[in-house]
């Protein structure tokens, strides 16, 4: 009696999958459908509300999308696995071994990206709504998916970048979750001018911009280059989505202010990159 019970236990433990008649496919379908629906609603609703609600909560709403999706997926997976698999330590080793081989040979990069995606949710090198540069691509993070993120460039191109870039590449985040970011406008002037006048004029240009965020600093940096005097006008717009309008405004009025202050912009046909 005792021996047959042990055998039955061993047999049960060695079975990887539950009996088909024991698996509730309806329950699994409901869990998958509910999870999909919840993720779909989150992906649609939160960005919709973010674009229409107060700008102060926009980034929080956008940033909540990948976090909610991660928790829903983890919850659904943990719920479904015991319904299909007969979870024992022995079976766990079998599944883990099989998965390791499959991942090692076929899905290495895919899984690496998914794991990087989970890490990205917690480390936050980028969040939806952030402005980032990854390799040569700069744009606003439109969505953070399981395997990749999508950014929209100023030229309105959508670039899909796998998360595993965070293992080896530098991620340049211009606002890092803040509502604004620094904009830099460059001017190159012929060296013969009154630098203090130009600095004051450029600072005034930024201070009178309609897009200026009052709580942030305005800065003019001057450096001497072999071919020109380089002015960098640095300021923050109150809404980072206005950064290109802000830069255009500063450039347009900055050029005018430079002329009024007696400066002359210089033109250089080509400059070595190291300079």
């Amino acid at each position, binding site marked *: 009696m005792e021996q047959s019970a042990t055998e039955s236990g061993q047999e049960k433990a060695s079975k990887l999958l539950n009996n088909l008649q024991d698996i509730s496919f309806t329950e699994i379908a409901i869990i998958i459908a509910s999870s999909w629906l919840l993720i779909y609603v989150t992906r649609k609703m939160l960005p919709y*509300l973010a674009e*229409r*609600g*107060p*700008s*102060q909560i926009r980034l929080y709403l956008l940033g909540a999308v990948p976090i909610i999706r991660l928790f829903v997926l983890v919850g659904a997976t943990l719920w479904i696995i015991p319904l299909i698999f007969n979870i024992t330590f022995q079976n766990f080793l079998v599944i883990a071994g099989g998965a390791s081989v499959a991942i090692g040979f076929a899905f290495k990069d895919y899984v690496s990206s998914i794991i990087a995606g989970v890490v990205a949710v917690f480390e936050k090198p980028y969040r939806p709504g952030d402005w980032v540069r990854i390799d040569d691509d700069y744009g606003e993070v439109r969505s953070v998916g399981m395997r990749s993120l999508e950014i929209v460039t100023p030229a309105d191109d959508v670039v899909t970048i796998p998360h595993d870039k965070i293992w080896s590449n530098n991620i340049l985040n211009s606002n890092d979750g803040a*509502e604004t970011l620094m904009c830099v406008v460059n001017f190159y002037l012929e060296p013969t001018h009154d630098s203090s006048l130009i600095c004051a*004029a450029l600072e*005034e*240009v930024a*201070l*009178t*911009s*309609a*897009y*200026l*965020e*009052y*709580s942030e600093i305005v800065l003019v940096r001057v450096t001497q280059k072999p071919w020109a005097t380089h002015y960098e006008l640095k300021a923050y717009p*109150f*809404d980072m989505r*206005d950064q290109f*309008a802000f830069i*255009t*405004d500063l450039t*347009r*009025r900055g050029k*005018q*202010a430079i002329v*009024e202050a007696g400066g002359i912009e210089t033109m250089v046909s080509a400059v070595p990159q190291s300079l």
Partner: protein
Amino acid sequence: MSDDSHLPKYIKLGDFEPPAMPTQRAFQILLSKSLLLFKKNKVGNEGAISSDHLGKTSEADLNNVAASPAYGPLLHALNQNLSPYVSDLKSDSKVELIVLPPCDENDIIKTWAKHNKLECLAPPTSQSILSGRADSPVIGSGNTLVIPRLEAWMMRTHSSLNLIRQLLAAIESTERSVVIGCNVYAWEFLKKSVDAASFLPDPMTFDALDCDQLKDWFNTLYSSEKNNYKLFHQQTAQDIFADNDEGNDSYFKELAATSSGIPWVAWHLWRKSLLTNDHKASDEGNDTPLVDDPNQHVLWVTALQEYALPDTKSNLPLLVLQAILIHHEISIDHLVKVLPGIRALAAVSLLKRAGIINQENGMLSCRPAAYPAIRQGLTASGFPVGVV
């Protein structure tokens, strides 16, 4: 209004706190706004008389029951708090800066100065500020000098801030007492652009009018016409000034919260709320039981009128509104100069059609009754706004 306890307190600008919206009403507004996100139909309520039967009240009737000026008790409060400057007694500070909410059509600081026969420093024209040909300000000597609107001394362009810098330097170096008025949007801009806070003392302002103060003020305005007019709350059909009526209290609490306790905003919203039954012939039964004297006019106090900013994808209307608020009023020609690009003209037309801004004698200004919507729009879009 002779009782000083009803006057708004004279406080530091940073201590300003607008009255809170009643919780129930706040939830109603939140719910209706949430619904509006998904459908365009407005959620409306009907009260004791159908809104369809109510029409605009004539200007003459409005002037009888809610006469100007729109600043209400503030002039009295100014007289009380600035008396050392009138009598030329030295107070703690020789310079007083009063930062007021925008949309003050009555120019209250100038009115106060005239009332007390104080000299006002006249600003140069906008054109001369823009061209850089304005004369340097001269403070001179004598008793208290009043600068009613500091914002009138600058334009928001890169070449138009020198004059106000000269003015601030002159104020700092003078021995003369100076009272300065400035609107809160201009003050926020000047603090950033010319470090105005370094030259001037901590700004003062008046505390928000609460629901009781508003009720008292409007009751006082109406009291002389009590025999000719009756004011009923549309929701409850009760006398709007009747004590211990929850509906009335709720109305005035909402008025105080919506207007942020700003007198001129509340005054305009109050007048907009007063409607007349223009279907008397067909619907006479509605108000005959409410008044004893058939010659008495019945005015219905309806829910506060809500303004909606034009629904555009760009924030150009908000840029226009911010520019107007900073300058208090500005011509279209000059507006183009303080805004990025020339597309502002299209936004001006939209805003005029929506009743948000007004154009008088070529000058654009924001309508006080629309200020709550303007402020909400600017705040929601992240524009820098002051506390009021």
